[in-house]
């Protein structure tokens, strides 16, 4: 497909850009296949705003046209007859009228661009025709479905090469590094051609005594083939975190000997294990009607099931929409702000995620038992709490590199469907399909931990913000596709650059590191009281004045630490 067929107007002069915190500026707007570029040429300096079209969540058009009476009547009648409901249809009508009669030359249009990273820009474009062309290009190009046409396949920065290693680690490397687990656990390549579980990586870690034939049978008994695999080994006591999807017990309580055997092999000689089900027990019961289910006490008698209801899917997406709406409310009515925040329920989702992760870590670290985590599909809340629990318990996940490796393992390789979940964000008018801000919720939870333990994490808030942006629209291929299989099929690892590698480049690394980092071997237990949890200002209020002062303060801390380091050396 040629991008040019979607670009009727590529350049417009004399466009006015309005964005928060900046005075309006006049310049040239340019639309390319992947970008919106606005450049100001002033006598002394030139400024540019470069925006990935993929980052655009929604646009709103408004025409400021000196329309003649007859046009208005036509318009009115048309809109009356077709009972249009919104701006889009309205401006569509106007464009027809505009084309028929060239009387509207003095007109102009305004496009409001709402981005997935919550930035809002406004462009005043002279000439209605041009305005509508630009808007149509943005609408089409911002949500192209074809992955191989997305920008990461075209992004070629000069300082990194496609020959560089893609990604930071592999399941093989993970296994080799964990010497302690090798006598009881093995690396299985049963999924090497993705036929056993399409959403798993080709290699996974499973109990030593369970052979590949058993795994194949277990996979048939678990939704999407996601049989229980090891995701974390706790060095202090040899306990593990396993994750999977729900068992397909169905209405007539089907059993699977191999599944029971596998879980038995996980516990080995220990007296019991825990299953943390991220659904309420009622939801788990209901899942049986549609073929899903849970591990019943009678069949898995050494496993104790704990149910924690975690919101997912649409409910989470709607919560994000509400919290963003509350943050964007400029009515300055203090009266309602906190109530709005509460009603969005976003912070209560943060609380549930952190407390469930805390429960998981408690089972492993304090009780000394192994845990299996799953919800239904095992690709959302399951990953959320296994990641957070590792951050709580394992100091090696708290370095900049360690955290990225954790994300790569638990989200990218483990098959979180980024493409579906991050197709749209809080501003979109599109009908919701598979969108859900689970990854954003993870980043918010990590931020809460970061705030409560300012010295314990090796990375900065800037990293979390970067990840929150890149998951939705990126120059890099890391968050493309829904699984390892899809990435391989499209050659993502050969034809795009890796975000994690880019973040670790020497110059970038400093920006994404926490200057105050002091490693601790201890577990870090976040407080989950509502009064301990705060709105992630850095993200939700990112484009407001307030955040700027916080950034200044962070910069000041960095400088002080650098100065102090110099003094200590001399």
């Amino acid at each position, binding site marked *: 497909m040629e991008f040019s067929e979607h670009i009727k107007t590529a350049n417009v002069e004399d466009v006015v850009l309005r964005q928060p915190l900046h005075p309006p500026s006049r310049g040239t707007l340019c639309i390319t296949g992947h970008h919106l570029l606005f450049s100001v040429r002033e006598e002394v300096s030139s400024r540019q705003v470069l925006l990935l079209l993929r980052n655009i969540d929604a646009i709103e058009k408004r025409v400021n046209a000196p329309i003649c009476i007859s046009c208005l009547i036509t318009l009115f009648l048309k809109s009356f007859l077709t009972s249009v409901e919104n701006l889009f249809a309205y401006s569509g009508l106007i464009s027809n009228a505009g084309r028929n009669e060239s009387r509207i030359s003095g007109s102009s249009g305004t496009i409001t661009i709402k981005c997935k990273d919550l930035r809002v820009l406004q462009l005043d474009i002279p000439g209605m025709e041009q305005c509508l062309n630009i808007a149509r290009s943005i609408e089409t190009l911002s949500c192209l479905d074809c992955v191989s046409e997305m920008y990461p396949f075209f992004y070629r920065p000069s300082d990194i090469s496609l020959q560089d290693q893609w990604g930071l680690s592999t399941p093989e490397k993970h296994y080799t590094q964990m010497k302690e687990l090798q006598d009881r656990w093995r690396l299985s390549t049963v999924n090497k051609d993705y036929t056993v579980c399409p959403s798993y990586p080709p290699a996974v870690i499973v109990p030593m005594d369970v052979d590949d034939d058993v795994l194949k049978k277990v996979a048939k008994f678990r939704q999407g083939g996601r049989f229980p695999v090891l995701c974390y080994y706790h060095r202090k006591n040899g306990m593990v975190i396993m994750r999977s999807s729900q068992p397909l017990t169905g209405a007539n309580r089907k059993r699977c000997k191999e599944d029971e055997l596998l879980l038995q092999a996980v516990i080995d000689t220990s007296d019991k294990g825990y299953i943390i089900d991220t659904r309420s027990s009622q939801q788990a019961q209901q899942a049986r009607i549609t073929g899903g289910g849970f591990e019943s006490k009678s069949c898995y008698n050494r496993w104790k099931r704990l149910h924690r209801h975690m919101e997912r899917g649409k409910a989470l997406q709607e919560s994000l929409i509400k919290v963003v709406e509350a943050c964007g409310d400029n009515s*300055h009515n*203090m*009266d*309602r*702000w906190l109530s709005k925040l*509460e009603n969005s329920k976003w912070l209560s989702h943060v609380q549930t995620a952190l407390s469930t992760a805390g429960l998981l870590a408690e089972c492993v670290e304090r009780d000394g038992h192994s845990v299996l985590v799953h919800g239904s599909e095992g690709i959302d809340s399951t990953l959320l709490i296994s990641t957070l629990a590792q951050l709580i318990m394992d100091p090696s996940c708290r370095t900049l590199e360690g955290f990225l490796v954790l994300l790569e393992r638990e989200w990218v390789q483990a098959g979180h469907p980024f493409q579906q979940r991050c197709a749209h964000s809080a501003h979109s008018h599109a009908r919701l399909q598979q969108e859900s801000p689970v990854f954003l919720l993870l980043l918010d939870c990590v931020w809460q931990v970061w705030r409560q333990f300012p010295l314990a994490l090796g990375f900065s808030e800037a990293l979390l913000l970067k990840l929150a942006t890149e998951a939705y629209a990126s120059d890099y291929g890391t968050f493309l596709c829904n699984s390892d299989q899809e990435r391989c099929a499209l050659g993502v690892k050969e034809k795009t650059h890796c975000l994690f590698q880019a973040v670790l480049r020497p110059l970038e690394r400093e920006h994404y590191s926490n200057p105050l980092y002091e490693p601790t071997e201890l577990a870090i237990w976040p407080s989950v*009281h*509502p009064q301990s949890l705060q709105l992630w200002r850095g993200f939700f209020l990112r484009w407001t004045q307030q955040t700027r002062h916080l950034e200044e*303060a962070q910069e*000041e801390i960095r400088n002080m630490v650098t100065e102090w380091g110099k003094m200590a050396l001399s």
Partner: protein
Amino acid sequence: MFQNQVPLLPGESIQTTVKDVMYICPFSGLVNGTLTITDYKLYFTSVEKESFILDVNLGVISRLETISVANQGQNTKGLELVCKDMRSPRFAYKTEESHPDVVNVLTKHAFPLSHNLSLFAYLYKEQFPVDGWKVYDPMAEYRRQGLPNESWTISKINSTYELCDTYPSILVIPTNITDEDIKRVAVFRAKHRIPVLSWIHPESQATIVRCSQPLVGPSDRRCKEDERFLQIIMDANAQSHKLTIFDARQSSVADTNKAKDGGYESESFYSNVELNFLEIPNIHVMRESLRKMKDVVYPTIDEAHWHSNIDQTHWLEYIRLLLAGAAKIADKLESGKTSVVVHCSDGWDRTAQLSSLAMLMLDSYYRTLRGFQVLVEKEWISFGHRFAARVGHGDENHANSERSPLFVQFMDCVWQMTRQFPAAFEFNELFLITVLDHLYSCLFGTFLYNSEKERAAKDVQTSSVSLWSYINR
């Protein structure tokens, strides 16, 4: 033997020691221990857990309440200390014939003024290397601001507090005005609190002027001298031909005040004057808001409704009103280069809040450790914020409607600013909390009494220690 374990301040003496007291901890249940009451504090040490100590100064106690304690046997009494600082520790103890009752001892020393005893600040004998009473020297502070200059003079007209008994002895007033005129203005302003300069912008010469409401009354009384006074204030700033009056009150309340002989400046009598109401509710509303806030946070928090409960106290809404009002004032000076007059009814509550917050926004000196002390000494203490009445130092009458947490509210606003501008302040949260602790403690003379005149009469500076001696040690 227990007495030896209680650390005492110089001048502090133990009044009674009671054994077998239960501290009813809201978090961990009952703690058994020994309670010592001195003339300054209540000191509880656990017999079981060595480390547990509860140290509550008596000044912080608002009222004592007997409570019922179930299942603790006969002769057991329950006691709740309702405090001014968001906590209410509870105790259970056995009554014994031979022992003076705990409540009596506590009452006497928590409320010394109601029992003809003196405040502990007069008994405290600590020596500090620095003298905090020297922190604020009005002449030096006005010199720092570049005063006097050709338009403003440092006046001794109130040196004996005859003109206004709640104002400081040193005032900055316009040069071109006679003492006779000032006396007429004083009669026209509530409590004789005439317009005086609080702060002058170093570049534009725009000023913050504070005063009380004009006594306009229902018949729209006028005072030529007052009108001329404001005209002179306007003229002192060559950059602008306007003057903005910020009346902190709700406009409806200002109208009610007019019926009661108070009021506000009419724009038709004061030329080129613009009047703005900041719509801030009165001290009674603030007291009620903080009371609700305490219910929300202590002893237990309803986790499911945390935000909406906080919302319903309206505390943050009032914080926002104050900060927004102060920002308007600061913006008028900074961007509009226009002088402002700030008043409420008496000019010692909301006026102090607004003028000091605006000064904190405009002048980085006040954001230093030392400068903040000067700001509090100047805008609050010397200008007669009624600390004794608002806090109720040593006074048993907890239901007195004069009490209100206006200074706490100001400190919350300061905290909000430190949070939004983390690199702009020299002091930290601990400093703000320490100041608030000693707002109640009566350990230092700094916040005692209602005015400079009262403090002079009670020899506060010679008989007690300044909080700043402790802070700056």
